[in-house]
């Protein structure tokens, strides 16, 4: 049993549960993955598996050191590699060896997973979008629309306190969504259907990890 799997976000839709309830779902193309490297406390100082998402990649898109790294495990065509720790909080899953395949069939309906992805970049976002400030009134002579307002007092403390919420770069950062329920597993097309939303645009890489808690 693998501690997780790598995949790509396909898109969202909704499905009906047997009791008639509507569930929003995200489809993930998960796997097939290969174990590229098995890290052990003896050689690497910690216990982990490195997975690579097997997909069509032009050979020249993978540089020679990476090709050699994949070759050691007898695999090729993987540019998205991630490690999963096996020691911290995970039960011993030492049955994985380099070269082994990890498929969606490892996951069952009703399992809980965490999904890690990179959120959509919003560029330089103002304070209303970035920190959910209310903003000011649009009309009635208001001259305060989407501005942040006061950011502190004057002669004391004579500076802006650290951590003051202001405009700045938003999105394009790693986001983890915890405890998403698996609604469906399609072993034929390697599709994993999880409940709820997943960070990032369609087609972006995601890491699916068995829920930590």
């Amino acid at each position, binding site marked *: 049993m693998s501690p997780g799997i790598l995949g790509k976000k*396909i*898109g969202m*839709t*909704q*499905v*009906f549960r*047997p009791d*008639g309830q*509507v569930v929003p779902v995200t*489809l993930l*193309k998960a796997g097939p993955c290969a174990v590229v490297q098995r890290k052990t406390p003896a050689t690497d100082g910690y216990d982990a598996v490195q997975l690579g998402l097997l997909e069509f990649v032009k050979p020249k898109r993978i540089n020679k050191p990476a090709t050699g790294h994949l070759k050691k495990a007898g695999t090729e065509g993987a540019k998205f590699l991630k490690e999963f720790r096996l020691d911290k909080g995970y039960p011993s899953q030492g049955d994985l060896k380099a070269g082994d395949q990890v498929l969606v069939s490892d996951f069952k309906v009703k399992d809980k997973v965490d999904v890690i992805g990179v959120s959509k970049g919003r560029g330089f976002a103002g304070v209303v979008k970035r920190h959910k400030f209310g903003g000011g009134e649009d009309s009635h002579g208001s001259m305060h629309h989407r501005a942040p307002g006061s950011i502190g007092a004057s002669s004391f403390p004579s500076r802006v306190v650290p951590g003051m919420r202001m405009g700045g770069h938003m999105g394009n950062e790693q986001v983890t969504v915890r405890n998403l329920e698996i609604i469906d597993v*399609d072993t034929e*097309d390697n*599709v994993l*259907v999880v409940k709820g939303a997943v960070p990032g645009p*369609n087609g972006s890489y995601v890491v699916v990890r068995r829920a930590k808690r």
Partner: protein
Amino acid sequence: MQNALLMKYIEKNRRTDLPTTLRTGDTIKVHVKIKEGDKERLQAFEGVMIARNNSGLGESITVRKISFGHGVERIFPLNGKMIDHIDLVRTGRARRAKLYYLRGLKGKAARLKERT
């Protein structure tokens, strides 16, 4: 929605037992499952289909009827399990996709010609 895998998943989960030829303007009879305690019975809702909304698994239809002088509309999800079956009562010729203008009409003015 152009992704082939997404479309495939939607096709797989879509209900196929309902008539596919329904068009806005048609008069239809929707048989809805109603749970009373632990028993289930069917209730019919007959009226004009005035709109078809969304695509994919969230697809729904809006049915309008006049009940004791009051206009009543119900929205039915087409892929849910609450609909038992749908009967086509009468076809209707509509020149637009959403017949919301019927809400402002009543009696003879709110009729639609049969589709030929």
